[in-house]
Protein backbone atom coordinates (compact mmCIF):
# COMPACT_ATOMS: atom_id res chain seq x y z
CA UNK A 1 0.00 0.00 0.00
CA UNK A 2 2.75 2.42 0.98
CA UNK A 3 4.72 1.94 -2.25
CA UNK A 4 1.67 2.16 -4.50
CA UNK A 5 0.72 5.46 -2.85
CA UNK A 6 4.00 6.97 -4.06
CA UNK A 7 2.97 6.24 -7.66
CA UNK A 8 -0.77 6.74 -7.33
CA UNK A 9 -0.69 10.12 -5.61
CA UNK A 10 1.28 12.10 -8.28
CA UNK A 11 -0.54 10.22 -11.05
CA UNK A 12 -3.93 11.20 -9.64
CA UNK A 13 -2.73 14.79 -9.21
CA UNK A 14 -1.53 14.86 -12.81
CA UNK A 15 -4.81 13.50 -14.20
CA UNK A 16 -6.92 15.86 -12.10
CA UNK A 17 -4.66 18.84 -12.89
CA UNK A 18 -4.90 18.26 -16.63
CA UNK A 19 -8.64 17.69 -16.30
CA UNK A 20 -8.80 21.08 -14.57
CA UNK A 21 -7.02 22.74 -17.50
CA UNK A 22 -9.57 21.23 -19.91
CA UNK A 23 -12.47 22.17 -17.65
CA UNK A 24 -11.14 25.73 -17.43
CA UNK A 25 -11.08 26.11 -21.21
CA UNK A 26 -14.55 24.59 -21.62
CA UNK A 27 -16.18 26.67 -18.88
CA UNK A 28 -14.50 29.87 -20.04
CA UNK A 29 -15.81 29.16 -23.55
CA UNK A 30 -19.35 28.58 -22.26
CA UNK A 31 -19.19 31.87 -20.31
CA UNK A 32 -18.17 33.60 -23.58
CA UNK A 33 -21.18 31.93 -25.29
CA UNK A 34 -18.85 29.78 -27.36
CA UNK A 35 -19.03 26.04 -27.85
CA UNK A 36 -15.47 25.53 -26.67
CA UNK A 37 -12.88 22.80 -27.18
CA UNK A 38 -13.39 19.21 -26.05
CA UNK A 39 -12.43 18.57 -22.43
CA UNK A 40 -9.48 16.45 -23.63
CA UNK A 41 -7.93 19.40 -25.48
CA UNK A 42 -4.98 19.83 -23.03
CA UNK A 43 -4.07 16.16 -23.59
CA UNK A 44 -4.09 16.72 -27.36
CA UNK A 45 -1.96 19.83 -26.86
CA UNK A 46 0.54 17.98 -24.67
CA UNK A 47 0.88 15.12 -27.20
CA UNK A 48 1.42 17.71 -29.93
CA UNK A 49 4.07 19.52 -27.87
CA UNK A 50 5.95 16.28 -27.19
CA UNK A 51 5.95 15.43 -30.90
CA UNK A 52 7.53 18.78 -31.79
CA UNK A 53 11.22 19.33 -32.04
CA UNK A 54 12.31 21.45 -29.10
CA UNK A 55 15.02 24.09 -28.93
CA UNK A 56 17.10 24.13 -25.76
CA UNK A 57 18.99 27.18 -24.51
CA UNK A 58 21.57 25.39 -22.40
CA UNK A 59 21.87 23.00 -19.49
CA UNK A 60 20.39 25.33 -16.85
CA UNK A 61 17.39 25.75 -19.16
CA UNK A 62 16.79 21.99 -19.05
CA UNK A 63 17.67 21.63 -15.38
CA UNK A 64 15.42 24.44 -14.13
CA UNK A 65 12.33 22.94 -15.69
CA UNK A 66 13.06 19.48 -14.25
CA UNK A 67 13.75 21.15 -10.91
CA UNK A 68 10.37 22.88 -10.83
CA UNK A 69 8.54 19.73 -11.97
CA UNK A 70 10.28 17.71 -9.25
CA UNK A 71 9.42 20.39 -6.69
CA UNK A 72 5.74 20.16 -7.56
CA UNK A 73 5.71 16.34 -7.44
CA UNK A 74 7.47 16.33 -4.04
CA UNK A 75 4.90 18.77 -2.62
CA UNK A 76 2.14 16.44 -3.81
CA UNK A 77 3.75 13.55 -1.93
CA UNK A 78 3.32 15.57 1.28
CA UNK A 79 -0.33 16.47 0.60
CA UNK A 80 -3.11 14.17 1.77
CA UNK A 81 -5.44 13.32 -1.12
CA UNK A 82 -8.41 11.97 0.76
CA UNK A 83 -6.74 9.63 3.22
CA UNK A 84 -3.86 8.88 0.88
CA UNK A 85 -0.65 10.58 1.96
CA UNK A 86 2.71 8.96 1.08
CA UNK A 87 4.94 11.24 3.20
CA UNK A 88 3.47 12.53 6.42
CA UNK A 89 6.40 13.80 8.49
CA UNK A 90 7.12 17.52 8.50
CA UNK A 91 3.62 18.61 7.59
CA UNK A 92 2.84 22.20 6.75
CA UNK A 93 6.35 23.57 7.34
CA UNK A 94 7.82 21.31 4.66
CA UNK A 95 5.05 22.23 2.24
CA UNK A 96 5.72 25.91 2.89
CA UNK A 97 9.40 25.43 1.99
CA UNK A 98 8.86 23.16 -0.99
CA UNK A 99 6.20 25.33 -2.60
CA UNK A 100 8.92 27.86 -3.49
CA UNK A 101 10.88 25.30 -5.54
CA UNK A 102 8.50 25.44 -8.50
CA UNK A 103 8.73 29.19 -9.24
CA UNK A 104 12.48 29.03 -8.51
CA UNK A 105 13.02 26.35 -11.15
CA UNK A 106 10.96 28.23 -13.72
CA UNK A 107 13.00 31.34 -12.90
CA UNK A 108 16.31 29.52 -13.45
CA UNK A 109 15.07 28.13 -16.73
CA UNK A 110 13.66 31.39 -18.03
CA UNK A 111 16.71 33.32 -16.95
CA UNK A 112 18.91 31.08 -19.08
CA UNK A 113 16.71 31.82 -22.12
CA UNK A 114 17.76 35.51 -21.92
CA UNK A 115 14.53 36.81 -23.36
CA UNK A 116 13.48 40.21 -21.94
CA UNK A 117 9.83 39.13 -21.78
CA UNK A 118 10.67 36.07 -19.70
CA UNK A 119 12.82 38.17 -17.32
CA UNK A 120 9.89 40.54 -16.78
CA UNK A 121 7.60 37.57 -16.26
CA UNK A 122 9.91 36.00 -13.69
CA UNK A 123 10.32 39.24 -11.75
CA UNK A 124 6.53 39.62 -11.70
CA UNK A 125 6.12 36.02 -10.57
CA UNK A 126 8.43 36.56 -7.60
CA UNK A 127 6.83 39.89 -6.69
CA UNK A 128 3.44 38.18 -6.73
CA UNK A 129 4.83 35.32 -4.62
CA UNK A 130 6.13 37.92 -2.16
CA UNK A 131 2.63 39.41 -2.13
CA UNK A 132 0.77 36.23 -1.29
CA UNK A 133 3.40 34.55 0.91
CA UNK A 134 2.81 37.05 3.77
CA UNK A 135 -0.93 36.33 4.22
CA UNK A 136 -0.28 32.64 3.38
CA UNK A 137 2.21 32.34 6.25
CA UNK A 138 -0.18 34.11 8.65
CA UNK A 139 -3.00 31.76 7.63
CA UNK A 140 -0.87 28.65 8.15
CA UNK A 141 0.27 29.99 11.54
CA UNK A 142 -3.33 30.51 12.59
CA UNK A 143 -4.31 26.99 11.54
CA UNK A 144 -1.27 25.43 13.23
CA UNK A 145 -1.85 27.42 16.43
CA UNK A 146 -5.53 26.51 16.52
CA UNK A 147 -5.00 22.76 16.14
CA UNK A 148 -1.69 22.62 18.10
CA UNK A 149 -0.04 20.55 15.34
CA UNK A 150 1.92 21.00 12.12
CA UNK A 151 0.78 17.71 10.61
CA UNK A 152 -1.70 18.12 7.77
CA UNK A 153 -3.14 14.62 8.26
CA UNK A 154 -3.76 15.41 11.91
CA UNK A 155 -5.52 18.69 10.98
CA UNK A 156 -7.80 16.84 8.56
CA UNK A 157 -8.54 14.15 11.16
CA UNK A 158 -9.45 16.69 13.85
CA UNK A 159 -11.74 18.44 11.37
CA UNK A 160 -13.54 15.14 10.72
CA UNK A 161 -14.31 14.96 14.46
CA UNK A 162 -15.07 18.60 15.27
CA UNK A 163 -16.36 20.07 12.00
CA UNK A 164 -14.73 21.92 9.13
CA UNK A 165 -12.46 24.77 10.14
CA UNK A 166 -14.15 27.04 7.56
CA UNK A 167 -17.30 26.70 9.65
CA UNK A 168 -15.61 27.10 13.03
CA UNK A 169 -15.60 30.61 14.44
CA UNK A 170 -11.85 31.18 15.15
CA UNK A 171 -10.65 30.14 11.69
CA UNK A 172 -13.33 31.60 9.42
CA UNK A 173 -11.36 34.82 8.78
CA UNK A 174 -8.26 32.83 7.84
CA UNK A 175 -10.38 30.76 5.48
CA UNK A 176 -11.74 33.86 3.77
CA UNK A 177 -8.21 35.24 3.48
CA UNK A 178 -6.99 32.01 1.86
CA UNK A 179 -9.88 32.17 -0.60
CA UNK A 180 -8.91 35.75 -1.47
CA UNK A 181 -5.28 34.84 -2.23
CA UNK A 182 -6.17 31.61 -4.03
CA UNK A 183 -6.32 33.24 -7.51
CA UNK A 184 -2.83 34.66 -6.88
CA UNK A 185 -1.48 31.22 -5.94
CA UNK A 186 -3.08 29.67 -9.02
CA UNK A 187 -1.97 32.53 -11.30
CA UNK A 188 -5.49 33.18 -12.53
CA UNK A 189 -7.14 36.51 -13.21
CA UNK A 190 -7.17 39.06 -11.59
CA UNK A 191 -3.60 37.93 -10.76
CA UNK A 192 -2.62 36.61 -14.19
CA UNK A 193 0.30 39.02 -14.04
CA UNK A 194 3.30 36.83 -14.74
CA UNK A 195 1.76 34.81 -17.57
CA UNK A 196 0.03 37.64 -19.39
CA UNK A 197 -0.08 36.63 -23.04
CA UNK A 198 -1.11 40.02 -24.38
CA UNK A 199 1.38 42.12 -22.41
CA UNK A 200 4.61 40.14 -22.14
CA UNK A 201 4.05 37.23 -24.54
CA UNK A 202 3.06 34.70 -21.85
CA UNK A 203 5.91 35.68 -19.54
CA UNK A 204 8.28 32.95 -18.27
CA UNK A 205 7.00 30.49 -20.88
CA UNK A 206 8.03 32.72 -23.79
CA UNK A 207 11.04 30.66 -24.89
CA UNK A 208 9.56 27.24 -24.11
CA UNK A 209 8.69 25.16 -27.14
CA UNK A 210 8.07 21.51 -27.82
CA UNK A 211 8.69 19.23 -24.85
CA UNK A 212 9.72 22.14 -22.61
CA UNK A 213 6.30 23.69 -23.08
CA UNK A 214 4.70 20.30 -22.40
CA UNK A 215 6.60 19.92 -19.12
CA UNK A 216 5.78 23.49 -18.15
CA UNK A 217 2.07 22.82 -18.85
CA UNK A 218 2.22 19.67 -16.68
CA UNK A 219 3.95 21.66 -13.95
CA UNK A 220 1.21 24.29 -14.16
CA UNK A 221 -1.46 21.59 -13.84
CA UNK A 222 0.26 20.15 -10.76
CA UNK A 223 0.61 23.63 -9.25
CA UNK A 224 -3.14 24.26 -9.64
CA UNK A 225 -3.80 20.93 -7.94
CA UNK A 226 -1.52 21.88 -5.02
CA UNK A 227 -3.11 25.30 -4.45
CA UNK A 228 -6.67 24.03 -4.37
CA UNK A 229 -6.04 20.80 -2.48
CA UNK A 230 -4.26 22.72 0.28
CA UNK A 231 -7.37 24.87 0.67
CA UNK A 232 -9.64 21.81 0.78
CA UNK A 233 -7.38 20.09 3.32
CA UNK A 234 -6.95 23.09 5.58
CA UNK A 235 -10.45 24.55 5.59
CA UNK A 236 -12.98 22.21 4.00
CA UNK A 237 -12.23 19.09 5.98
CA UNK A 238 -10.40 17.00 3.36
CA UNK A 239 -12.21 13.70 2.86
CA UNK A 240 -14.88 14.41 5.47
CA UNK A 241 -18.49 15.08 4.44
CA UNK A 242 -20.55 15.64 7.62
CA UNK A 243 -19.47 12.27 8.98
CA UNK A 244 -21.16 10.02 6.39
CA UNK A 245 -17.93 8.04 5.98
CA UNK A 246 -17.71 7.33 9.71
CA UNK A 247 -19.02 3.71 9.61
CA UNK A 248 -16.76 2.60 6.75
CA UNK A 249 -13.80 4.85 7.44
CA UNK A 250 -11.17 2.12 7.65
CA UNK A 251 -12.25 -0.10 4.74
CA UNK A 252 -10.96 0.21 1.18
CA UNK A 253 -14.33 1.67 0.11
CA UNK A 254 -13.99 4.34 2.75
CA UNK A 255 -10.62 5.35 1.33
CA UNK A 256 -11.88 5.44 -2.28
CA UNK A 257 -15.04 7.37 -1.36
CA UNK A 258 -12.87 9.75 0.69
CA UNK A 259 -10.75 10.50 -2.38
CA UNK A 260 -13.88 11.06 -4.50
CA UNK A 261 -15.40 13.46 -1.95
CA UNK A 262 -12.08 15.29 -1.77
CA UNK A 263 -11.95 15.67 -5.57
CA UNK A 264 -15.56 16.86 -5.77
CA UNK A 265 -14.77 19.60 -3.24
CA UNK A 266 -11.74 20.59 -5.32
CA UNK A 267 -13.80 20.81 -8.52
CA UNK A 268 -16.38 23.05 -6.82
CA UNK A 269 -13.67 25.42 -5.55
CA UNK A 270 -11.99 25.44 -8.95
CA UNK A 271 -15.24 26.32 -10.74
CA UNK A 272 -15.84 29.24 -8.36
CA UNK A 273 -12.28 30.41 -9.12
CA UNK A 274 -13.07 30.13 -12.85
CA UNK A 275 -16.08 32.41 -12.46
CA UNK A 276 -13.82 34.98 -10.76
CA UNK A 277 -11.30 34.45 -13.57
CA UNK A 278 -13.97 35.09 -16.22
CA UNK A 279 -15.37 38.25 -14.68
CA UNK A 280 -12.32 40.23 -13.60
CA UNK A 281 -9.68 41.99 -15.71
CA UNK A 282 -5.99 41.81 -14.87
CA UNK A 283 -4.37 43.86 -12.09
CA UNK A 284 -1.19 45.79 -12.66
CA UNK A 285 1.61 44.52 -10.42
CA UNK A 286 1.47 47.42 -7.96
CA UNK A 287 -2.33 47.13 -7.72
CA UNK A 288 -1.98 43.43 -6.99
CA UNK A 289 0.62 44.06 -4.28
CA UNK A 290 -1.54 46.80 -2.74
CA UNK A 291 -4.53 44.44 -2.68
CA UNK A 292 -2.63 41.41 -1.37
CA UNK A 293 -0.89 43.30 1.41
CA UNK A 294 -4.07 45.08 2.45
CA UNK A 295 -7.19 42.90 2.66
CA UNK A 296 -5.98 39.29 2.86
CA UNK A 297 -3.11 40.26 5.16
CA UNK A 298 -5.43 42.24 7.43
CA UNK A 299 -7.99 39.42 7.57
CA UNK A 300 -5.38 36.73 8.20
CA UNK A 301 -3.69 38.87 10.87
CA UNK A 302 -6.99 39.41 12.70
CA UNK A 303 -7.66 35.68 12.30
CA UNK A 304 -4.30 34.87 13.88
CA UNK A 305 -4.98 37.30 16.75
CA UNK A 306 -8.39 35.71 17.39
CA UNK A 307 -6.86 32.23 17.45
CA UNK A 308 -4.05 33.27 19.79
CA UNK A 309 -6.26 35.28 22.16
CA UNK A 310 -9.22 32.90 22.44
CA UNK A 311 -7.42 29.54 22.62
Amino acid at each position, binding site marked *: MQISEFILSPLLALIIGIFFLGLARKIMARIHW*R*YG*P*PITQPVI*DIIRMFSQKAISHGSIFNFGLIFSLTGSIVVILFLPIGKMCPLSSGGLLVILYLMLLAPLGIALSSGEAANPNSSIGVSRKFLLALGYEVPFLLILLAVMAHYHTISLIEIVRIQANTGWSFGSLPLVLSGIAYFLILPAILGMRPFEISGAAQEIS*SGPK*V*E*FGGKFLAFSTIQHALHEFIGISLFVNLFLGGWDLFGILEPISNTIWGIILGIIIFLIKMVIIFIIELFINAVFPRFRIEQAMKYLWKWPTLLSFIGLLIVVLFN
Partner: protein
Amino acid sequence: MDRNKISKWLKNPGKMAHKYSFHVVYFCTGCGIIEIPPSITARWDAERFGIIPVATPRQANLFLITGYVSTKTLKAIIRTYEQMPDPKYTVALGSCPINGGMYYDSYNTITSLDKYIPVDGYIAGCMPRPEAIFIGVTHLWKLIDMDKADGYKRYREDYVHYRANQEQLFGELEWPPLFIKEIVK
Protein backbone atom coordinates in the same frame (compact mmCIF):
# COMPACT_ATOMS: atom_id res chain seq x y z
CA MET B 1 -13.51 15.38 -38.62
CA ASP B 2 -11.96 12.23 -37.13
CA ARG B 3 -11.00 13.61 -33.74
CA ASN B 4 -12.92 10.92 -31.82
CA LYS B 5 -11.57 7.89 -33.71
CA ILE B 6 -9.48 6.03 -31.15
CA SER B 7 -7.88 3.71 -33.72
CA LYS B 8 -6.36 6.64 -35.60
CA TRP B 9 -5.03 8.09 -32.35
CA LEU B 10 -3.32 4.81 -31.49
CA LYS B 11 -1.86 4.51 -34.99
CA ASN B 12 -0.22 7.91 -35.21
CA PRO B 13 -0.74 10.11 -32.13
CA GLY B 14 1.69 12.82 -33.22
CA LYS B 15 -0.01 13.46 -36.53
CA MET B 16 -3.50 13.45 -35.04
CA ALA B 17 -2.42 15.80 -32.24
CA HIS B 18 -0.93 18.17 -34.81
CA LYS B 19 -4.22 18.19 -36.70
CA TYR B 20 -6.39 19.07 -33.73
CA SER B 21 -4.09 21.39 -31.83
CA PHE B 22 -3.12 24.33 -34.00
CA HIS B 23 -1.45 26.99 -31.92
CA VAL B 24 -1.31 29.89 -34.30
CA VAL B 25 0.99 32.86 -34.71
CA TYR B 26 -1.02 35.47 -36.56
CA PHE B 27 1.25 37.74 -38.50
CA CYS B 28 -0.61 41.03 -38.85
CA THR B 29 0.84 42.27 -42.10
CA GLY B 30 -2.22 43.68 -43.79
CA CYS B 31 -5.96 43.96 -43.90
CA GLY B 32 -6.45 40.21 -43.36
CA ILE B 33 -5.96 40.47 -39.62
CA ILE B 34 -9.42 42.05 -39.33
CA GLU B 35 -10.92 38.68 -40.31
CA ILE B 36 -9.18 36.89 -37.43
CA PRO B 37 -10.96 38.30 -34.32
CA PRO B 38 -14.43 37.08 -35.42
CA SER B 39 -13.02 33.66 -36.22
CA ILE B 40 -11.45 33.17 -32.78
CA THR B 41 -14.22 34.77 -30.68
CA ALA B 42 -17.85 33.96 -30.02
CA ARG B 43 -19.16 34.31 -33.59
CA TRP B 44 -17.21 31.47 -35.23
CA ASP B 45 -15.23 30.04 -32.30
CA ALA B 46 -12.10 28.44 -33.75
CA GLU B 47 -11.30 26.92 -30.34
CA ARG B 48 -13.85 24.18 -31.10
CA PHE B 49 -11.17 22.67 -33.33
CA GLY B 50 -8.32 23.37 -30.94
CA ILE B 51 -7.15 26.48 -32.79
CA ILE B 52 -5.96 29.17 -30.40
CA PRO B 53 -3.64 32.14 -30.86
CA VAL B 54 -0.35 32.03 -28.96
CA ALA B 55 1.96 34.87 -28.16
CA THR B 56 5.31 33.52 -29.31
CA PRO B 57 6.56 31.49 -32.30
CA ARG B 58 8.29 28.99 -29.98
CA GLN B 59 4.93 27.64 -28.80
CA ALA B 60 3.24 27.61 -32.20
CA ASN B 61 2.88 25.15 -35.03
CA LEU B 62 0.80 27.14 -37.53
CA PHE B 63 1.91 30.41 -39.08
CA LEU B 64 -0.88 32.47 -40.61
CA ILE B 65 0.25 35.35 -42.81
CA THR B 66 -2.70 37.66 -43.16
CA GLY B 67 -2.35 39.93 -46.14
CA TYR B 68 0.26 41.61 -48.26
CA VAL B 69 3.93 41.27 -47.40
CA SER B 70 6.15 44.30 -47.76
CA THR B 71 9.90 43.98 -48.09
CA LYS B 72 10.39 45.26 -44.57
CA THR B 73 7.98 42.83 -42.90
CA LEU B 74 9.38 39.88 -44.86
CA LYS B 75 12.49 40.02 -42.65
CA ALA B 76 10.34 39.60 -39.55
CA ILE B 77 8.35 36.82 -41.23
CA ILE B 78 11.51 34.84 -42.05
CA ARG B 79 12.88 35.22 -38.54
CA THR B 80 9.54 34.22 -36.97
CA TYR B 81 9.28 31.21 -39.25
CA GLU B 82 12.79 30.05 -38.42
CA GLN B 83 12.09 30.28 -34.68
CA MET B 84 9.12 27.92 -34.83
CA PRO B 85 9.85 24.30 -33.87
CA ASP B 86 9.33 21.53 -36.46
CA PRO B 87 6.80 20.31 -37.64
CA LYS B 88 5.31 23.66 -38.60
CA TYR B 89 2.82 24.76 -41.20
CA THR B 90 2.37 28.02 -43.04
CA VAL B 91 -0.87 29.32 -44.52
CA ALA B 92 -1.09 32.58 -46.40
CA LEU B 93 -4.34 34.49 -46.39
CA GLY B 94 -5.66 36.59 -49.27
CA SER B 95 -4.47 37.09 -52.82
CA CYS B 96 -1.56 39.42 -52.04
CA PRO B 97 0.94 36.75 -50.83
CA ILE B 98 0.11 34.65 -53.92
CA ASN B 99 0.94 37.15 -56.66
CA GLY B 100 0.92 40.60 -55.15
CA GLY B 101 -2.81 41.12 -55.58
CA MET B 102 -3.71 44.77 -56.00
CA TYR B 103 -0.12 45.69 -55.14
CA TYR B 104 1.27 43.67 -58.05
CA ASP B 105 3.32 46.60 -59.40
CA SER B 106 4.34 48.11 -56.06
CA TYR B 107 8.06 48.63 -55.57
CA ASN B 108 8.15 47.38 -51.98
CA THR B 109 5.64 44.49 -51.94
CA ILE B 110 6.63 40.87 -52.34
CA THR B 111 4.75 39.40 -55.27
CA SER B 112 5.38 35.75 -54.40
CA LEU B 113 5.86 34.73 -50.79
CA ASP B 114 6.66 31.13 -51.74
CA LYS B 115 10.09 32.20 -53.00
CA TYR B 116 11.26 33.17 -49.51
CA ILE B 117 9.57 30.75 -47.11
CA PRO B 118 7.66 27.54 -47.98
CA VAL B 119 3.87 27.96 -47.89
CA ASP B 120 1.71 24.89 -47.31
CA GLY B 121 -1.52 26.42 -48.50
CA TYR B 122 -3.15 29.61 -49.68
CA ILE B 123 -6.63 30.86 -48.90
CA ALA B 124 -7.48 33.04 -51.89
CA GLY B 125 -9.82 36.02 -51.80
CA CYS B 126 -9.69 39.71 -51.12
CA MET B 127 -10.31 39.24 -48.23
CA PRO B 128 -11.44 35.67 -47.48
CA ARG B 129 -14.27 35.52 -44.96
CA PRO B 130 -13.86 33.57 -41.68
CA GLU B 131 -15.73 30.60 -43.23
CA ALA B 132 -12.97 30.41 -45.84
CA ILE B 133 -10.38 30.21 -43.04
CA PHE B 134 -12.20 27.18 -41.60
CA ILE B 135 -12.36 25.53 -45.04
CA GLY B 136 -8.64 26.23 -45.32
CA VAL B 137 -8.08 24.49 -41.99
CA THR B 138 -10.01 21.40 -43.14
CA HIS B 139 -7.86 21.33 -46.29
CA LEU B 140 -4.77 21.54 -44.11
CA TRP B 141 -6.06 18.52 -42.13
CA LYS B 142 -6.29 16.57 -45.39
CA LEU B 143 -2.79 17.65 -46.38
CA ILE B 144 -1.40 16.55 -43.00
CA ASP B 145 -3.20 13.20 -43.40
CA MET B 146 -1.56 12.66 -46.77
CA ASP B 147 1.85 13.91 -45.53
CA LYS B 148 1.73 16.67 -48.12
CA ALA B 149 2.01 19.57 -45.66
CA ASP B 150 5.79 19.22 -45.78
CA GLY B 151 6.87 22.85 -46.04
CA TYR B 152 9.29 22.50 -43.13
CA LYS B 153 10.98 19.56 -44.88
CA ARG B 154 11.21 21.51 -48.15
CA TYR B 155 12.76 24.42 -46.29
CA ARG B 156 15.50 22.14 -45.00
CA GLU B 157 16.11 20.42 -48.34
CA ASP B 158 16.11 23.57 -50.47
CA TYR B 159 17.56 25.85 -47.84
CA VAL B 160 20.37 26.98 -50.15
CA HIS B 161 17.88 28.32 -52.68
CA TYR B 162 15.61 29.93 -50.10
CA ARG B 163 18.61 31.61 -48.49
CA ALA B 164 19.86 32.72 -51.88
CA ASN B 165 16.48 34.27 -52.69
CA GLN B 166 16.45 36.06 -49.33
CA GLU B 167 19.98 37.35 -49.87
CA GLN B 168 19.14 38.48 -53.36
CA LEU B 169 16.42 40.69 -51.93
CA PHE B 170 18.12 42.00 -48.79
CA GLY B 171 21.81 41.78 -49.60
CA GLU B 172 23.76 40.66 -46.53
CA LEU B 173 21.40 39.07 -43.94
CA GLU B 174 21.71 40.07 -40.28
CA TRP B 175 21.15 36.57 -38.91
CA PRO B 176 23.16 33.36 -39.35
CA PRO B 177 21.86 30.54 -41.56
CA LEU B 178 19.41 28.15 -39.88
CA PHE B 179 20.91 24.98 -41.37
CA ILE B 180 24.67 25.42 -41.54
CA LYS B 181 25.32 21.92 -42.93
CA GLU B 182 23.16 22.50 -45.99
CA ILE B 183 24.92 25.79 -46.73
CA VAL B 184 28.39 24.23 -46.47
CA LYS B 185 27.41 21.43 -48.85
